[in-house]
């Protein structure tokens, strides 16, 4: 994996400062949504081999949640966005 991550708040930092939570492409369903919708959100994963959106937290830095676009095979990092900004961008 890329050893340096460009945090939008802290600049270039070693990746060990971050913790990785997982898939950032999932959208939490409405509380009243169907069981199927919740099952898909909780259990089903696209698990792509290639570009992947992931939630990272900069735990040893600004502690902000970030959305990192990364390749799951080459580990190349394409972009790092603040989580809130990413959520606004997709107009959730």
């Amino acid at each position, binding site marked *: 994996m890329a050893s340096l991550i460009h945090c939008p708040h802290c600049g270039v930092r070693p990746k060990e400062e971050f913790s990785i939570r997982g898939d950032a492409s999932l959208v939490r369903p409405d509380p009243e949504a169907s069981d199927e919708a919740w*099952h898909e959100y909780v259990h089903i994963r696209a698990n792509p081999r290639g570009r992947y959106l992931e939630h990272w937290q900069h735990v040893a830095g600004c502690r902000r949640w970030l959305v990192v676009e990364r390749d799951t*095979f*080459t580990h190349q990092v394409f972009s790092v966005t603040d989580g809130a900004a990413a959520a606004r961008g997709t107009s959730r």
Partner: protein
Amino acid sequence: MRYSAFSIVKNALTGNVNWKPAWRQPEPKPYYDVIIVGGGGHGLATAYYLAKEFGLKNIAVVEKGYLGSGNVGRNTTIVRSNYMLPGNEPFYEFSMKLWEGMEQELNYNAMLSQRGIINLYHNDSQRDAYIRRGNAMWMEGVPAELLDRAALKKMLPFLNFDHARFPIMGGLLQKRGGTARHDAVAWGYARAADRLGVDLIQNCEVTGIRRENGVVTGVETSKGFIGCGKLGLAAAGNTSRVGEMADLKLPIESHVLQAFVTEGLKPAIDHVITYGAGHFYISQSDKGGLVFGAEIDGYNSYAQRGNLATVEHVMEEGVMMIPGLSRVRVLRSWGGVMDMSMDGSPIISHTPIDNLYLNCGWCYGGFKATPASGWCFAHLIARDETHPVARFLRLDRFERGYPIDEHGAGPQPNLH
């Protein structure tokens, strides 16, 4: 050719030029009754038991690389059945019993060594958890033994008993657990399956799954279309990719797990030992190298290599448990792609497509399950019904609300 002490002597005296290849290299036929995708331990075992136990004739295994090129040759070779939950324990004990008779059945030396596996505990609550697990094992008829500190000190004097934060108080022992030569398991099943007429087609990547009227009719491969009556998927870390070809939505993430081996040493560690304060596990191979590993790296990965941060973490855990390890040099490390399921337990199941069967979600416990996985998957494919010991390992258990979560970590694959 049947392997025996006599055949070794005979071939040695004749210059070792008369050995035959262990299996054929067939070209794919246009149609098979059953095709298994994935020529690893589970796929090969499935093909073997389909032919041996369920009497099927026209079977193929298609493998994108060479046989045993995936996780069956990348694990730390541990064999055990010390699970707790009723959905898991009978299955793994079935596997343990198959291990015990496997070498004779396959006529292949898998170097099974039932040296005992010891899970260490470091505090009262962990001891209670292990007592509970030991009792759960006994309830399924699997012997387990609780060792106190004095007994452990006698057996494993090299452990760090008086660590300030994680003193070792004892351990749970399963005497029948141990190790097996992992490559030999793949080769043994491959050879035995080949002798029963199974076609093992290597370097043949599945690129598509052809369906008509809602059922599978065959697979598109790098060697052309191959028709089939039933299709079984045993693609481990690539399960999601293969499943996608049949529009399966799966509760699987692919993660990387690393393993390590040191330079060869004289016999030093007689058992398989796992650390209770971390996830570290270690044993010594017959060649003398210490084989060990710990957690997955914790992020989705299809690369068969890991990160240095995890390497450092594993080494720290190892030295915490056995201080003497700091003097040993690591020879090699490698990574494997794990099909992590949402509850940490495997899936051997029907799918929404009638003649498509799924075997996946082995997380990093697939090796010990190889024989039972093969048997139960063969049972499912041949009879179209679930084997009794695998009845909880269904794909639909997640949406029905019956996960089998040994760790109690919830639907978060990087925590299992």
